[in-house]
């Protein structure tokens, strides 16, 4: 296990380096870009001394390296400061938005992975069948259609024309606000149907295509013949094949989760979902740097963490991986 510990340390060090780089890039982006955050914040009638006071308050008058070090410390401690336009701390706001984003992507992710795996595995197992052709063709189409377009179409049809489903938001007026309250509320699930399905329609294609091809690969392996020669039933053999075909899925799902977590800007806007992506766009529209910065940072962190977890997990599920 010494090998593993060394590996873990190395990976953590690498991740730390990447975080530092990303933080630095963000610092350059937000602090050193032309323009002055006070310019947007100050009212027209501010006098110079008021502006200077504001700058001092935000530490904008310090030398850049003091600002940089303070910024690094704050970011690493998840102290994102105060937004320009809201009076909760950025960290509190982020917590709320991250939760909301998760409320949208996690169910969609689970459905996509579970059903995508099943469909993909079956398609790979029955290569050449009508089912396989249909699954692949549908996946290719769904993969190509931009999800925001699907979202718009879904809204047009199911919300505005047929009026079957609510056209956005997470819960109706006055609905529950806590995590468990929402999960227990049928209204939340009703609101989730459209954005969830749109998400699934795209995200499910990944596992389907991946599982299908990795199943094809596994199908050519010698050990399957051996399993049959051992006299195992077809069911057990499929289990073996799927278990092997699932290996690449682990990495894929981690990467996919990261992308989902970053990428729901469009759907959150179309479906009025108060999540992290929408918050980012809103913050950018108002140049609310602390919020935008924190949102971007969290997205990057989640992505990195998931990649790290995926690598470690891969080692756990594939005994062939060694850490030497």
């Amino acid at each position, binding site marked *: 296990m010494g090998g593993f510990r060394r590996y873990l340390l190395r990976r953590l060090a690498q991740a730390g380096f990447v975080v530092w780089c990303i933080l630095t890039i963000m610092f350059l982006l937000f602090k050193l870009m*032309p*323009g*002055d955050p006070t*310019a*947007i914040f*100050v*009212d*027209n*009638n*501010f*006098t*110079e001394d*008021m*502006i200077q*006071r504001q700058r001092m*308050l935000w530490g904008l008058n310090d030398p850049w390296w003091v600002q940089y070090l303070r910024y690094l410390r704050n970011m690493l401690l998840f102290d994102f400061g*105060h*937004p320009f*336009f*809201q*009076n*909760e701390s950025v960290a509190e*706001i982020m917590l*709320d938005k991250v939760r909301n984003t998760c409320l949208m992507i996690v169910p969609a992710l689970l459905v996509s992975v579970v059903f995508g795996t099943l469909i993909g595995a079956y398609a790979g197992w029955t290569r050449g069948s009508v089912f396989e052709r249909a699954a692949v063709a549908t996946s290719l189409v769904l993969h190509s259609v931009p999800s925001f377009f699907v979202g718009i179409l879904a*809204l047009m049809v199911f*919300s*505005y024309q047929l*009026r079957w489903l*609510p*056209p*956005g*938001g*997470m819960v109706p*007026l*006055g609905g529950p*606000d806590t995590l468990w309250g929402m999960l227990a509320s049928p209204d939340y699930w009703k609101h989730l149907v459209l954005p969830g399905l749109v998400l699934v329609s795209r995200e499910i294609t990944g596992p389907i295509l991946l599982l299908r091809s990795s199943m094809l690969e596994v199908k050519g392996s010698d050990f399957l013949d051996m399993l049959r020669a051992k006299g195992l039933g077809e069911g057990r053999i499929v289990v073996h094949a799927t278990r092997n075909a699932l290996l690449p899925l682990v990495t894929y799902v981690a990467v996919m989760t990261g992308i989902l977590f970053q990428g729901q800007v469009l759907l959150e*806007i*179309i479906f*009025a979902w*108060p999540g992290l992506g*929408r*918050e980012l766009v*809103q913050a*950018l*529209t*108002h*140049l609310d740097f602390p919020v935008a910065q924190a949102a971007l940072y969290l997205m990057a962190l989640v992505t990195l963490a998931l990649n790290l977890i995926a690598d470690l997990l891969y080692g756990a599920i594939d005994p062939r991986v060694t850490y030497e």
Partner: protein
Amino acid sequence: MSRQERFKGPKMDRRSLMMLMAASGAAGPALAQAEPAIDVVNPKYRKFYDDVAGYYIKDPQWVKETAARLTWPQAGERVPEIRVIIPNTEPAWLDAFRKWSKDGEQLGLRYKLEQMSQARWLEEINVHRHGDIEVHPAVLRPERVDPAEWIVSRGYGSDRRNYGEWVVEQYDDLIDRQSAASDPAERLKLVREAARVMAEDLYPCVFGWGPSIIEAYNGGDWDNFVKSRGFGIGNFNAFLGFSRVKPKGNRKSLRVGMTNLLETTNLLGATNNMRAIGRMIYDRLAYYDENLNVIPWAVESWRRLDERTWDLTLRKGMEFHDGRPVTVRDLKFTLDFMVKYERGIFWTANRFLESAEIVDEANGVLRTRFKQPYGQFESYFMQLNVVLPQHIWGNIMEEQNTAGDPRRLRIDTPIGSGPYRFGRHRKDTELQLIANKKHFDPPQVDDIWVVVTPSLDGLMGRLESREIDVIESSNISLTPSQAAQLAKSSHVRIERTPDVNWLHGVVRASVLPWRDYEFRLAWQHSIDREFLVKVPWEGAGRVPKSNTFLAEGNPWHNPDLPAVPGFDLGKAREILRAAGYAWASDGRLVYPAPVNAGWRQRVVRVSKPGLTWGGLKMLGG
């Protein structure tokens, strides 16, 4: 102190200096000069350029851009590209400017249209880096009914927001006088006179009056929305709509759709939406009726003692939402608090306030005294200020450590005395305002739910499906085609309210080519105002009759202003030719020859004959 010492321009490195010199065409002896001598004609304005201009005159980029345009062009030099920045929230402007820049090509003009986020656009304007034309819409808020809002900000020689750096001494004199004129009739006269000076100098170009205020609401369930001139029916800035609306059926909960709900529930730190909503929770001192006349609100009456002093009498029997009575002490506390801490939006109304003293506690009379004669007492001071509860705010600055910034205070549940109590609030999603039936002007509804829907499409869909009853209109005005779509639903009613909106562009009169009055005139002839009204605004607007911010319908409008130069490219070319301009082989407009005395005179004078230019001086001979 010598002028050179006083002038604290940017420290420029040698490379920038060389570039600047090259750009300005200066050579030889000029190289010895360490700083570009951007100076003003009238030293009275020097202070403005030193202090406030600290914003931009210390910005090397601003200096570079400006100096280049303050330098006499050489023979055959082309009129530079006209840069216009447009926020990406305003597709109509872009559509209009596309057309105008195409028309401008026939005059040999070339435009550079840049689109950016609204915040970025504001930022560029704030540091005077917006290019040639500052395009701006009127978004009416109660405090902006006062004419000073625009006539000061866009034309006063010593205002940071004078983005065209247009400095005319006669105009500034009128502005000084109107601000001190506490007699409304006299003030009206001065304001109209100022508008005339501005219009005659062709400094602003009003592109259109509008867009019209078109709103839709659920007329199946609701009745009696009051239309306020310039605001419409569903605007939180004018709560007449929300206080008079009557339910037709049993549902007494009004649902208002909005595109966003900025989050601060602290009134002092709030921006547009929440600031307007906050003023339904806290009572303003005075208010506007539907025709924009000032009416008493929390202050029952006021009396002018002299041009600097007023007595305010608080309305009797008011209660805060927690049951405590509203007293004149609360009012005094609020004003003191604002003077002591607040340097944001309330500062605009309170910076001239000298003192607030209780003169008759039993009858609730407070005497306010201002530092100077104050013309904006009713339309600014009384409109902006609210009554804060002293028992909550008394020690709040000490309790919450916000480094002396009241905008950082955390007020999770605002308590005021206004017609609505703060109810449930879910960030970025919904906000409930519960009717305060004990209010002196109690709302007819039980509560208002503000529902956030980020897209107009979503809002319209929800209105059709009766999920919302009205779209909040301070951010969103419908176009006729959108209204027509909505009108297909039988329960939706469309309302048009008289507006005093406009879209203007102020040119940077201080620099070339805009310094030439004739050029400004020719350029205005190239603007097809009718196109803006007809196509991008879909006919919902008016072709402006005059270049004024106080449009027809505004109580401060001057009906006797010169008409806007009509769209006539031939005439524009004629004017340019007569003024000495020529065209290069590729069609681009070329400045008049340096020897053209008429042109030199016009450029030095900037304004039309009879007005005195006090702003930036041309550089070099």
